[in-house]
C-alpha cells in the first residue's frame, strides 16, 4: 500500500487558501495567474469526462438527482427558516453537495456515516427520507430524531446514519469508536466520518487519527475543507494548511481530492474503502470544497468577498457535473427537466409532511433521557 498517496496538488488550492478577504478590502493578489487556473480546470474537466465513461447512466443520474435534491431541499429549508418555521441554527450545505453524494455513493448500505452539525446533505445521501429530515428541522414528532435533535442532530438507526454532532470535532472520536466496534465484532463495515477543516485544529482529530492508525481501525476521515471555520479563514487558523499532509504525523494514508467533482470524491472514497475492508486501515481525505451560503442562516458574510464566492460558483459541483453529463451525451434537457420535476415533488412532499406532522407531545419532554429509567422522574 502506498502511504501518503496524495494526488496531484491543486494549484488552485494554493491560490484559494490565500484569498480570504474581508468584504470591504480588495481580494489579495493571486499567486497563480488566471490562464494557469483555467488550464487546471480544463484538465479536471477531462478527468470528470473520463470517469463518466466508466459508469452506467443509471448511477450517474442517481448521483445528479441526489445532489439536486440536497440543493433544493436546503433552498426550501432556508425559505422556511426565514418564515420562522425552522428555529435555532440552520447550517446549509449548498456548494458542498458533491462531497456527501460522491463519498456515500462509494459505500454499502450497512456502512456507517456520521458528521458535524452541517448534516442535511449526508443525511439525505445516506438515505434518511426527505420527509423526516424536513420534519426534524420543523421540530416535529415525525422528524428522524422525533423533533428532539433539530437541524444539527439528524439520526436514523435504520440507515446507519449516526448523527449530526454539534461540538466541532466531537464526532471524530465517535467515528473511531464505531470503526473499533466493527473490527471487534469481526464485521467489515466501513465508517465514514465527515468534519470541516476547522475541526482539524481540535485535539479530538489528532487523538483519533493516532488511535485509528495505531489500532488499525477501518475509518475514513473526510475533511471537508470549505476554507472557513465560521468566519475565520484557513490561513488565519492553521499553521500547516495542507490538511492531507497531517496524516503523515500518524503514518496514515491520505489523499487530496477536488470536492467540486462528485466522481473524484467517489473514486477517492472507493480507494479508501478498499484499504479499510481489506486491511482495516484508516484513511484521511482532504476534500477541497466551498460553501456558497453563510456559516449559518445568521451569518452576515462580511469575511469574504462577493467576487470570491462567484469565482467558486463557476465551479458549482452541480453545474459542472450537469455540463459534463450533457457533453458526454448522458443527459439531455428533457431528462434534466425530469430530474428537477421529481426533486421538486419530493421537496414539496417533504415540506407538506413537515407542516402536517404533529409537534412532539408534551410528555415527550421526559422520555429518552435514560434507556433504563430508575424510580421517579430522574
Amino acid at each position, binding site marked *: 500500500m502506498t502511504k501518503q498517496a496524495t494526488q496531484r496538488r491543486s494549484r488552485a488550492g494554493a491560490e484559494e487558501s490565500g484569498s480570504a478577504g474581508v468584504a470591504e478590502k480588495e481580494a489579495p493578489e493571486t499567486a497563480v495567474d488566471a490562464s494557469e487556473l483555467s488550464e487546471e480546470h480544463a484538465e479536471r474537466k477531462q478527468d470528470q469526462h473520463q470517469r463518466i465513461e466508466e459508469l452506467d447512466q443509471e448511477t450517474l443520474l442517481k448521483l445528479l438527482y441526489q445532489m439536486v435534491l440536497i440543493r433544493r431541499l436546503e433552498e426550501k429549508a432556508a425559505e422556511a427558516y426565514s418564515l420562522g418555521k425552522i428555529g435555532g441554527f440552520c447550517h446549509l450545505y449548498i456548494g458542498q453537495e458533491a462531497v456527501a453524494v460522491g463519498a456515500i455513493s462509494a459505500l454499502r448500505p450497512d456502512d456507517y456515516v456520521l458528521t458535524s452539525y452541517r448534516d442535511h446533505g449526508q443525511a439525505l445521501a445516506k438515505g434518511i427520507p426527505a420527509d423526516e429530515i424536513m420534519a426534524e428541522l420543523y421540530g416535529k414528532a415525525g*422528524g428522524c430524531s*422525533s423533533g428532539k435533535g433539530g437541524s444539527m442532530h439528524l439520526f436514523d438507526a435504520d440507515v446507519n446514519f449516526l448523527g449530526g454532532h454539534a461540538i466541532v470535532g466531537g464526532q471524530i472520536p465517535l467515528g473511531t469508536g464505531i470503526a473499533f*466496534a466493527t473490527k*471487534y*465484532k469481526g464485521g467489515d463495515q466501513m465508517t465514514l466520518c465527515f468534519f470541516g477543516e476547522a475541526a482539524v485544529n481540535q485535539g479530538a482529530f489528532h487523538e483519533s487519527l493516532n488511535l485509528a492508525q495505531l489500532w488499525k481501525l477501518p475509518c475514513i476521515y473526510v475533511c471537508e475543507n470549505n476554507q472557513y471555520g465560521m468566519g475565520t479563514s484557513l490561513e488565519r487558523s492553521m499553521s500547516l494548511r495542507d490538511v492531507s499532509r497531517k496524516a503523515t504525523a500518524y503514518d496514515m494514508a491520505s489523499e487530496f481530492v477536488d470536492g467540486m467533482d462528485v466522481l473524484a470524491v467517489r473514486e477517492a472514497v472507493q480507494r479508501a474503502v478498499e484499504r479499510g475492508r481489506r486491511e482495516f486501515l484508516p484513511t484521511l481525505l482532504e476534500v477541497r470544497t466551498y460553501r456558497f451560503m453563510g456559516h449559518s442562516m445568521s451569518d452576515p458574510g462580511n469575511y469574504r468577498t462577493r467576487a470570491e464566492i462567484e469565482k467558486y460558483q463557476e465551479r458549482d459541483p452541480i453545474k459542472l457535473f450537469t455540463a459534463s453529463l450533457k457533453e458526454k451525451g448522458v443527459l439531455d434537457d428533457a431528462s434534466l427537466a425530469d430530474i428537477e420535476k421529481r426533486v421538486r415533488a419530493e421537496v414539496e412532499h417533504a415540506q407538506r409532511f413537515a407542516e402536517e406532522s404533529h409537534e412532539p407531545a408534551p410528555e415527550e419532554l421526559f422520555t429518552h433521557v435514560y434507556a433504563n429509567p430508575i424510580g421517579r422522574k430522574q
Partner: protein
Amino acid sequence: MAVITIREALNQALREELERDENVFLMGEEVAAYQGAYKVTKGLLEEFGEKRVIDTPITELGFAGLGVGAAMVGLRPIVEFMTFNFSILATDQIINSAAKMLYMSGGQFKIPIVFRGPNGSAFQVSSQHSQALESWYAFFPGLKVVMPSTAADAKGLLKSAIRDDDPVIFLEQERMYGNKGEVPDDKDFTIPLGVADVKREGTDATIVARSLMVPMALRAAEELEKQGVSCEVIDPRTIRPLDIDTIVKSVQKTNRVVVAEECHPFCGVGAEISTQINERAFDYLDAPVRRVSGADVPMPYAKNLENLAIPSVAHIVAAVREVAYLD
C-alpha cells in the same frame, strides 16, 4: 461469604462481567500489561486477552469518545480513568456525547458505557490529583453516578453499572481500595442502582454520607452513641438518580440531618440533598440541615494541611452535636 478488599471486589465484578458478555471490554491507561495503576484490573489481560483488555495511550478525550462510539453500535465498554482528575480532559465526550445521545437521537442510540476510576483525595498528591467530581457529573441528566463505600457495594453496583444501558460514572476512592468487607460469593449478586442503604440504624440524627465519608460517619456514630446520641447513617450509593425517599424517611424519624461529603461545599451534592430535604421534609426538621464538606480550597500537599482539608470524624461529631443542640 468471603472477606475481600474493595480492590478485589471490583476485580471480581470486572472478571465476571467480561466472562458473562462478549460485548463487554475494558480499556484505559495501564489497565492491561501493567495490571492497573491501582491493580484493580490485575490478571484480566491474561484471562481475556488483548482484544478485550486494552491499554490505551494517554489520550483521555480520544479513548472516552472511542468508547462512546463503540457503545452506539452495540458494545459495552468499561473505560477506566487512572484517576477521575484526568476525566476532565474527556468531559466533552462524556457530557456532550454520552449523556445526550439517546435524547437527541429521539431514543435511537443508547450508550451502555461505564466510566470508572478513583475520585477524590489520595495521599498527598496535591491539587490536580485530589478532586471529588461527583457534583459535576451528577449535574447532567442522561448520566448515572455511583459511589460505593464497601466491598459488597463496589462489586454489586459495578456489575449493575456494566449491565445498565445508560452511561454510568462509577466513582471509586483510592484511599478505600484496601478496605475489607464481606462479599457474597454468588456470581449473580448485584445491587440495583438508585437504591440507598441504611448503614446503621438510629433515632436521634441522620448522617447522609457517601464514599470515603461512610466509614467516617460510622465511626462518628459510634462515638456519638457513647455520648448518648443515636445516629442513623445513610449511604445513597447512587448519587443520580438519588434515592431521596430513603433519606426523607429517616429524617421524618430523626428530625435532624448532617450531610458529610469529601467534595467542595459550593454547588456540591450536599447542597442538592439539603435542598431536597427542605422541599420534602421541612416540617419534620428540628434544626437546619448541616453540611460537612471538603475545605473550599484546592487540595494542598503538606500532610497537616491535607488533613485539615478533608472532613474528619471529629468534624462529623461536632456537626451532629450542633444539629442536636448539644453544644
